[in-house]
């Protein structure tokens, strides 16, 4: 068994996006290192580099001090590195036993999989979590039939089934209940005694302090701090994760928060529940820019999409006091809703079609039959110039535009319909700084015009700079509503992590 793994100055790009620019990590046998960082800080990339799923672009991996290279998951596995993947690496159609032993099936003399041994060993592994299963979990049940927490446990068992020396737990506790988490932590303690090392990636502060011996903090792809967990507290950790105040070229209107109280309520949701969301309630005023915060994937997308009629939900949604329940986005559009989705290439735009086609897509109906093409073009050109869209011409494909300009097309296509409620899913992601500033001005203008805006952003400074009120989502619920004095970066990050007390003021 190996004794230590060191990650030195790791660099990893995905296309033009730098996921890791200077990642460092040291892990020794018999210890648990918590890998901590905000959204997009590079935690998942770091684990993928260590387990060979992503090939690094620069830097070094040292196993017991010797440089190693993991070009494939197989090589990392041979070196005794196991991963519990956040997205799970299970084959739904295959059984629990088949999944756990895939590529390491015990064979008989004829080269056949020895099912008896496989099942017996699987039952042994399942016994580790005995009593925490909701269903009658056996080795020959197909994984597709299991609830999320049991799938997660199978993923964990799969990782430890080949007795690795290093286990990477990437958000392994996210779908487990408290009993299962406790059992996992008991096991982690045992593994430590057996000489294993554990890298623990989690969003939950409480768990980090419960199980970790050391910490390593990533910020924007750089390792910015590491040390013993007992030398640090929650507040200090949060501080490390926060960037120094970046200078943003925007300021919101002064003292708007008091006016909002008297304004009428435009959008109201009560106990909104989907397959994922667990009862979300909020009120948004007319002309309010309501922020939605929290780590990525805590239900923000589901919230915005269900309001837009794109996901089925239960609960009540009221628009100016009148109950609405959209079954599809078209109904939502007719009531003046607009959605700027998080994945603009996939959901927001027809990438190979022209800018004109994209801008007019939701509005063709208004140009009659036969189409008044000239009028439509004129309106599209107006929208384009009002958004300061930089393009070679309206007939150019959207794929020719930069990220920021492509996002302007997404927003522009909705503005042409004069929407009343705008739902924005991280609209400034992958947008250049100059365009961001334009967006901020646009958002302010729109809210002054009386449009209600729900604004999810993965950049906390945007929420603080632009919004008066921010709802922080955590584990598919609203963790807290921050407004006025409580709306600080520290509180925002602490709430995102589900921390018990507030962060630094």
């Amino acid at each position, binding site marked *: 068994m190996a004794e230590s793994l060191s990650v030195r100055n790791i660099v990893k790009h995905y296309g033009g996006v730098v996921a890791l620019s200077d990642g460092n990590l040291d892990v020794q046998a018999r210890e648990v290192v918590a890998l901590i960082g905000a959204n997009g800080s590079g935690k998942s990339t770091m684990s993928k580099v260590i387990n060979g799923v992503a090939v690094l672009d620069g830097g070094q991996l040292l196993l017991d001090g010797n440089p190693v290279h993991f070009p494939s998951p197989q090589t990392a596995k041979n070196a005794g590195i196991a991963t519990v993947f956040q997205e799970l690496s299970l084959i739904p159609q295959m059984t629990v036993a088949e999944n756990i032993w*895939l590529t390491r099936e015990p064979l008989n003399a004829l080269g056949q999989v020895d099912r008896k041994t496989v099942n017996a060993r699987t039952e042994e592994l399942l016994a580790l979590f005995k009593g925490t299963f909701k269903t009658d979990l056996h080795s020959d049940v*197909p994984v597709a039939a299991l609830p999320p927490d049991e799938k997660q446990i199978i993923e964990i068992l799969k990782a430890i089934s080949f007795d690795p020396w290093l286990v990477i737990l990437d958000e392994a506790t996210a779908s487990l209940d408290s009993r299962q988490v406790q059992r996992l932590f008991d096991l982690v303690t045992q593994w430590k005694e057996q000489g294993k090392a554990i890298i623990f990636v989690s969003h939950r502060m409480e768990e980090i302090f419960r199980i970790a011996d050391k910490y390593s903090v990533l910020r924007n792809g750089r390792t910015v701090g590491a040390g013993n967990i007992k030398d640090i507290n929650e507040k200090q950790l949060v501080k490390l994760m926060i960037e120094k105040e970046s200078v943003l070229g925007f300021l919101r209107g002064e003292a708007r928060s008091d006016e909002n109280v008297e304004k009428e309520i435009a959008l109201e949701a009560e106990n909104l529940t989907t397959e994922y969301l667990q009862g979300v309630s909020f009120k948004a005023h007319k002309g309010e820019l309501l922020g939605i915060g929290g780590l990525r994937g805590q239900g923000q997308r589901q919230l915005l999409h269900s309001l837009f009629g794109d996901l089925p939900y239960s609960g009540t949604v009221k628009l100016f006091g009148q109950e609405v329940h959209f079954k599809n986005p078209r109904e939502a559009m007719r009531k003046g809703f607009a959605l700027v989705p998080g994945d603009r290439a996939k959901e927001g735009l027809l990438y190979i079609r022209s800018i004109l086609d994209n801008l007019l897509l939701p509005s063709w109906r208004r140009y009659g039959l036969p189409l008044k093409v000239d009028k439509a073009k004129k309106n599209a050109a107006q929208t384009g110039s009002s958004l300061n869209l930089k393009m070679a011409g309206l007939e150019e494909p959207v794929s020719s535009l930069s990220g920021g300009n492509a996002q302007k097309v997404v927003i522009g296509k909705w503005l042409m319909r004069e929407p009343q409620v705008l739902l924005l899913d991280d609209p400034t992601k992958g947008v250049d700084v100059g365009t961001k500033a334009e967006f901020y001005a646009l958002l302010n203008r729109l809210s002054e015009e009386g449009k209600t805006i729900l604004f999810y952003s993965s950049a906390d400074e945007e929420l603080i700079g632009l919004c008066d009120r921010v709802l922080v989502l955590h584990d598919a619920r609203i963790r807290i509503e921050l407004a006025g004095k409580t709306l600080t970066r520290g509180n925002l990050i602490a709430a995102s992590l589900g921390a018990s007390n507030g962060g630094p003021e």
Partner: protein
Amino acid sequence: MKLSGWDALAARQPALFALVMLGLSLVINLILQPNMFARETLNSNMRVFLPIILLAVGQAIVILGGGIDISVGAIASNVNTVLATRIGLEGSPEAIWGFVFLSLGIGLLAGAINGFFIAYLRLQPIITTYATSFLYAGLALFILPNPGGGIPASMAALYRNSTPFNLPLAFFVILIILLIWLYLSSTRYGKFLYAVGGKAEAAYETAVPVTRVQFSTYVISGLMAAFSGIALTMLSGSGNADIGGPMTLNSITAVVIGGNALSGGVGGVTGPVMGAITLGIIQNIISFADIDTWWETFVKAAIIVMALAAPGIVNLFRRRRT
């Protein structure tokens, strides 16, 4: 998600649907053709079914691995034209053996070409094999522009009239195939096949050699297509560059009837073998019942459309209910 009773049954016994279809069509056929289980009739049926059974087995492996092979019929045509032109009516036993082995090599090579493009260059399976099917079919036309050529009568008779233990030769071929499958599916390779077809990305993260497994499925399919071409040649005794083309759709239909998911990772080979026999029987029924032959195409197409639509329809009803 909880599997409903039906889903659980379908997951455990994917070939059940094929068995029901086979039984049903057998009964109808038996009514129309009471002597169908007589030795001669059974043999004359089975020898016609065998080429499509062989194609379906190869297709089943590819589909299990998450791909599809549109070129199997063209490969079979290719082999057919090579054998019919090279061996000739007066061919010696040495020539026969030599060209039969050459045919198998052609099948392996054609499958390897498909596999290279799809597994290593990561091209779309359906587009790639559609394109290469023209390559293989075109080559067959080049070798034998007009139907003709031939093989020695003894070689044809060996295939047509052999009935060891009073059973059709095809039964023994099927038995061998099923035994090989039974073994293969219990090996590590079998597990890899299901894993790659089920969720290739997860399989990769689990260190399954995804590319090599994908490649291998097309090679197997090419080899099975070559066997099918050999059987076709011995059945017809002559060559025809268009003989295999229409069989491609049949091979896919057989796999679908056999209970394999077109998306991969579910099913086996036993189901598709039954599916191929069912298809042959449907053909019989149509000819005996004196129905216009276009019904045959209609029935096959309807089966595929139904199989493709079934999961969607089930989901639609589920959504309605909630």
